């Protein structure tokens, strides 16, 4: 058995590649790395009224890492922040049929979502505190 069609599709034509200005108030940035293989992944969300209206990513890594982050950006779009936090790496594994040796790529994507939301929240509290 080879990689699933979905992985290949997300790898060949990844969705939402790019970046937002991270200084903008309504943008949250997550930057994570996979120690297993040295992959790095940046995932950004744009939030309006507590809802993720747009998402972008940039990943330097293998096909599974790119596919996982591409899928993650698609899924978070339109979700509220709380809903986005319920996305689990296992959902990504299932959707893309990732092999066990590539599970860490989905973990990376989940971490990236969490870290982007945390960054967004942190900066909001900073701003309101000022």
């Amino acid at each position, binding site marked *: 058995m080879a990689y699933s069609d979905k992985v290949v599709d997300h790898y060949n034509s990844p969705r939402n590649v790019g970046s937002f200005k991270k200084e903008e108030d309504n943008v949250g940035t997550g*930057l*994570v*790395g996979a*120690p297993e*293989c*040295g*992959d*790095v992944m*940046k995932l950004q969300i744009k939030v309006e009224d507590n809802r993720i209206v747009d998402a972008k990513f*940039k990943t*330097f890594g293998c096909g599974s890492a790119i596919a996982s982050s591409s899928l993650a950006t698609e899924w978070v779009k339109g979700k509220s922040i709380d809903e986005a936090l319920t996305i689990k790496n296992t959902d990504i594994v299932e959707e893309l049929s990732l092999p066990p040796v590539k599970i860490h790529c989905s973990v990376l994507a989940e971490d990236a979502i969490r870290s982007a939301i945390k960054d967004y929240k942190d900066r909001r509290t900073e701003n309101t505190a000022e």
Partner: protein
Amino acid sequence: MKHDHLSSHSVCLGCNITMATPLFCFSCNSIQRLSTKPNYFEIFDLPYTYNLDIKRLEDNYQKLAAELHPDFYLQSASTEKRQSQESSSLLNRAYTALKCPMSRASYLLELLSHGKPLDERKLPAGFLEDIFELQETLEDLLVDVEDHAEELAAVKSDVEKRLNALQEAVSQLFGNIEKDPSNQKNIVESIQVNLNAERYLQRLLERISRSNQV
């Protein structure tokens, strides 16, 4: 930690002499039967230290390979033949593990942490941001390798500099353990952080060297 290896010298099964290495007795020229897997440092008669005498490692490897290699046991009894295969395999693995500074550090950490897993995710502050930036720079340069040969070489030497600094740091940290064994736990953790970072830098180097291939 660097002296206790002296007590672990094994005794030749044939002539009862204390041997410099558990693999071979240079006094009666006999290959040794191994009941347990010896420690890599013992094999080369070297102290358990990161700042290793590489010349001695190299010399002792060659000396042992020239005694243990299966090519010299083709005409021997089958138990010796098998032992030479086993000991040579072990020798080659031990040599590879100790020769490269980073794998040597990993092996030492494994010994020092007594099998307890260390945090493999922790990185130096700001490190991941740097890596991401380097990856982005590289991405732009790799669009046209020929045109950006100079810039690529500059990135490469930057990454290599970082790797060297990292190895220097690891070397110092190991030195600190030897000076002050009481603080071992904390130092072991910071060494691990450096080893974690090393993988990201290696990954960058691989990417550059792949692009250089004709």
